[in-house]
């Protein structure tokens, strides 16, 4: 067995292991990996997501057991300090030695700290590792406690913007300080930078360009930045993100050849000046360049694996593509090819739209035949197509401006025309180097016949995911070329989409899941189609979730929301958030009796957390005995109708928003739908109920209500759009009845109203035609269907606690009275919370 030692367990070091494991000759080698961080390799590209809820484990590149399962000896928290090339041995900081046949250096880079006086002061950080992020977070906390919130990020490049986003996520005022006259100077031109700046400033971040820092102000702790132009910026924290420096110290000391400005020199086989040592990733100096992107690093890993295992004709390409597409601070930015090309033999075509904040530039050869590169800011949806045209040197249309302006006047669809016209070797996924022929191939040879299958098989779209739309197009087109029908079926068990299943179930009056799958599907079903069919039957027959427990979504099965440690939360309905003091006392007593963590929700009700499965019926019995009922917080169904206090108390109120919100919530409560539904009613245009962020929003104006539809908060916030103005209560209800039922009948599974509206051709205007002018001749039917649902409403918790059979499902064990002994709670601000996930 030959010994391969890898120094460095970052993204590229991990990728080397992954590629090595996949190689046919892997069993002939013994792989040992050293990482100086305490964690296994994690995704550094998405580091700022650590502040938006991702854990270190979520960011991890592999599972805890992956290395062991693949017989890789991983040493974390172990720093290699010496390479003895003559004896072919490495030594760690404690002097322990390990011998190697091949050594791979994947030591990566560290943050470059410019030699500015004062960088050692308290409050100055770099942005590179999870430890850095933890230190920044802890410091930000103490700052905020003192009321200090000004923070600067030094560097307006890719990493700097990412760091600024992280700083903003921590609740600080972020200032981006850049030496160059523009942001992302290596990728963007002035026009692109200006547009990016406008977008970022609009989000509340501050940008200071053309600023060179002379020294850092403050005694022991940072107080500000002093620029050389004698101006200053008062800040309480500084995060340096001004570039990277290759970690070549150990290589340098061992006498390997390094570049003038750092980096281990490698040839196109990734070999260093020593025949037994390879270098990959950000520490490797290839073509006299350090490549600070993951895609070239991944390619280098693959080359190194091939070289070590004897496939010596696999080498690194001479030209390395530095195209990138990413989302920075909520803004799409892409740059490809020679983005800044300014030669005489090319023309730049620029589209700039200050209204929608979009900037596009393409560089086209003088003869108009070739695309040389380009920049997209604010809308990078054409990136994949443009990149392919550039990368495969495709012939351009007669008017190259069509590439960024669209073919005005005629509707020819995609820029590329047909994705199948791409050459076979066109690289579709650059993160994983997957070509068009690889994607189409696995379908043609019968290994896969779905998008999911192709992704699993080829790994395409598993990196940044930017190529997924193109992968989908290719999969669809290939299937079609093979004569297979392409449908957005709900899963492998049904050849139908949700709307078709809805119609089938309604027509055939099916009442049981087994009837549907036996007659119209195949196999035993899954976690996708079961809840879809449960929801459809609930939307047709007003069945509660108690009817067929095993096909209900896990939350519906136990009528509660499962939380982090497998306990549940309990939310009784408080229509429109109006509650008497007596009922509020009942809630307090219930929370106390069962020792539940208690919180007010965004939907103006009370949420109890930490209830064990076996406690749920007892808690609900107490609540129901005091006049409460299920709040359906666990269901894909109407949650709440939020209200402001309205004209009953508010001196500005135009109408009784609370009364109307209660009426709407009582009307639609328990209504099962493709996704959750939320409503809001505001008493005037000040909109305190945030009704326009809801699936339906009603706002009182002079002369009636304005009705808005299809908004949501969440990951992609969208304001609801105006359907009708100045209408009375009855008309609001009439339109809402029709709208809700139309949505329930036609939406895809788990598609909220905003997304659904996006897919309706004609958008809100079409919806107006259907709901107000009866374009489809459906309104009578829709009204009849929804009134059946409204009239047959039952509180499913009341139903559950009265039925002994249903009660049985709330025991943790079927063969024991005991409860789950795995639960551990820890104290939190006079309440409790689950122990942290380890």
């Amino acid at each position, binding site marked *: 067995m030959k010994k391969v030692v890898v120094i460095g367990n970052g993204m590229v070091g991990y990728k080397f292991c992954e590629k090595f494991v996949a190689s046919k000759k892997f069993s002939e080698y013994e792989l040992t990996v050293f990482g100086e961080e305490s964690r296994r390799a994690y995704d550094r590209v998405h580091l700022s997501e650590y502040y938006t809820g991702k854990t270190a484990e979520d960011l991890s590149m592999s599972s805890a*057991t992956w290395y062991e399962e693949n017989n890789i000896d991983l040493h974390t928290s172990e720093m290699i300090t010496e390479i003895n090339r003559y004896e072919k041995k490495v030594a760690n900081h404690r002097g322990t030695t390990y011998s190697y046949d091949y050594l791979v250096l994947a030591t990566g880079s560290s943050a470059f700290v410019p030699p500015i006086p004062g960088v050692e002061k308290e409050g100055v950080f770099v942005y590179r590792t999870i430890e850095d992020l933890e230190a920044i977070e802890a410091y930000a906390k103490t700052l905020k406690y003192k009321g200090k919130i000004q923070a600067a990020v030094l560097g307006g490049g890719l990493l700097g913007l990412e760091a600024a986003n992280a700083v903003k996520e921590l609740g600080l005022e972020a200032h981006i300080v850049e030496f160059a006259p523009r942001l992302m100077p290596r990728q963007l031109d002035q026009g692109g930078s200006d547009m990016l700046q406008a977008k970022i400033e609009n989000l509340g971040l501050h940008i200071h360009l053309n600023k060179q820092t002379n020294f850092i102000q403050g005694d022991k702790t940072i107080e500000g930045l002093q620029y050389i132009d004698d101006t200053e910026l008062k800040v309480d924290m500084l995060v340096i993100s001004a570039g990277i420096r290759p970690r070549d110290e150990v290589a340098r000391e061992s006498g390997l050849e390094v570049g003038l400005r750092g980096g281990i020199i490698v040839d196109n086989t990734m070999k260093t000046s020593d025949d037994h040592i390879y270098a990959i990733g950000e520490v490797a100096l290839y073509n006299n360049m350090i490549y600070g992107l993951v895609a070239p690093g991944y390619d280098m890993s693959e080359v190194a694996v091939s070289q070590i295992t004897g496939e010596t004709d696999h080498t690194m390409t001479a030209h390395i593509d530095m195209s990138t597409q990413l989302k920075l601070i909520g803004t799409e930015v892409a740059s490809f090819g020679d983005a800044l090309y300014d030669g005489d033999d090319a023309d730049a075509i620029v589209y700039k739209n200050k209204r929608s904040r979009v900037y596009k530039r393409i560089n086209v050869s003088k003869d108009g035949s070739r695309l040389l590169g380009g920049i997209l800011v604010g809308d990078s949806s054409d990136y994949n197509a443009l990149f392919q045209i550039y990368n495969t040197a495709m012939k351009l249309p007669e008017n190259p401006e069509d590439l960024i302006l669209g073919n005005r006047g005629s509707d020819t669809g995609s820029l590329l025309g047909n994705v199948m016209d791409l050459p076979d070797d066109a690289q579709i996924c650059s993160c994983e180097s997957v070509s068009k022929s690889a994607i189409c191939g696995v379908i043609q040879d019968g290994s896969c016949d779905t998008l999911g299958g192709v992704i699993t098989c080829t790994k395409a779209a598993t990196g940044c995911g930017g190529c997924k739309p193109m992968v989908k197009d290719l999969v669809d087109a290939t299937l079609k070329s093979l004569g297979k029908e392409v449908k957005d079926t709900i899963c492998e068990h049904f050849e139908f989409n949700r709307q078709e299943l809805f119609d089938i179930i309604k027509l055939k009056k099916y009442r049981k899941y087994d009837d549907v799958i036996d007659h119209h599907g195949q196999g035993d079903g899954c976690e996708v189609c*079961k809840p879809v069919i449960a929801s459809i039957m609930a939307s047709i027959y007003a069945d509660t979730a108690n009817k067929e427990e095993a096909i209900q979504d896990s*939350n519906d099965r136990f009528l509660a929301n499962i939380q982090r440690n497998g306990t549940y939360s309990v939310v009784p309905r408080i229509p429109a958030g109006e509650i008497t003091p007596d009922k509020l006392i009942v809630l307090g007593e219930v929370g106390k009796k069962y020792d539940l963590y208690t919180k007010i929700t965004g939907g103006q009700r009370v949420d109890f957390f930490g209830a064990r499965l076996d406690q749920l019926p007892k808690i609900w019995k107490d609540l129901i005995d005091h006049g409460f009922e299920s709040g359906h917080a666990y269901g894909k169904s109407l949650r709440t109708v939020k209200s402001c206090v309205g004209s009953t108390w508010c001196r500005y109120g135009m109408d009784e928003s609370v009364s109307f919100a209660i009426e709407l919530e009582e009307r639609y409560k328990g209504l099962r739908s493709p996704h959750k539904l939320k409503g809001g009613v505001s008493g005037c245009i000040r909109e305190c109920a945030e009704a326009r962020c809801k699936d339906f929003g009603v706002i009182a104006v002079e002369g009636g209500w304005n009705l808005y539809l299809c908004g949501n908060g969440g990951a992609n916030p969208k304001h609801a759009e105006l359907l009708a103005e100045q209408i009375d209560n009855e008309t609001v209800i009439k339109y809402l009845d029709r709208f809700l039922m139309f949505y329930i009948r036609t939406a895809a599974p788990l598609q909220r109203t905003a997304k659904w509206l996006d897919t309706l051709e004609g958008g809100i205007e079409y919806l107006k035609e259907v709901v107000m002018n009866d374009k489809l001749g459906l309104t009578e039917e829709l009204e009849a269907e929804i009134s059946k649902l409204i009239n047959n409403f039952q509180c499913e918790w009341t139903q559950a606690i009265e039925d002994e059979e249903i009660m049985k499902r709330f025991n943790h064990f079927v063969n024991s009275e005991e409860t789950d002994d*795995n639960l551990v709670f820890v104290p939190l601000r006079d309440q409790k919370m689950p122990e942290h*996930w380890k």
Partner: protein
Amino acid sequence: MEEILEIYKTTSIEDVTVWYKAARVDDFPKNGGACIKYKEKQIAVFNFERKNTWYACQNVCPHKMEMVLSRGMIGDQNNIPKVACPMHKKTFSLVDGKNLNGDLAPIATYPVKIEGDSVYIGFSE
């Protein structure tokens, strides 16, 4: 956290030394699962009534180490019977315990036999 996993080891039918009588057939939902306790172990037991087949596996999901798999939905993927964890919908084969939609560690599975109206789970200790 790994110590929770240590007590769960896949047991093949040849290794069984104890057939533990866990509960009655009717105690389990049709085409669904429930949890039983055997010594220190929590075992999820699933009744694939459509196929008249039963499966058992550890109740703990190796993703976040919570005792929840018995509350997951069951079904099949390319004819492999599977369970989907109710927390994050990680799916596992009930035949060999393999994680079908990721690279989590496999779950331990146990043999099940039905005699009369009793459900027995096989353990090697």
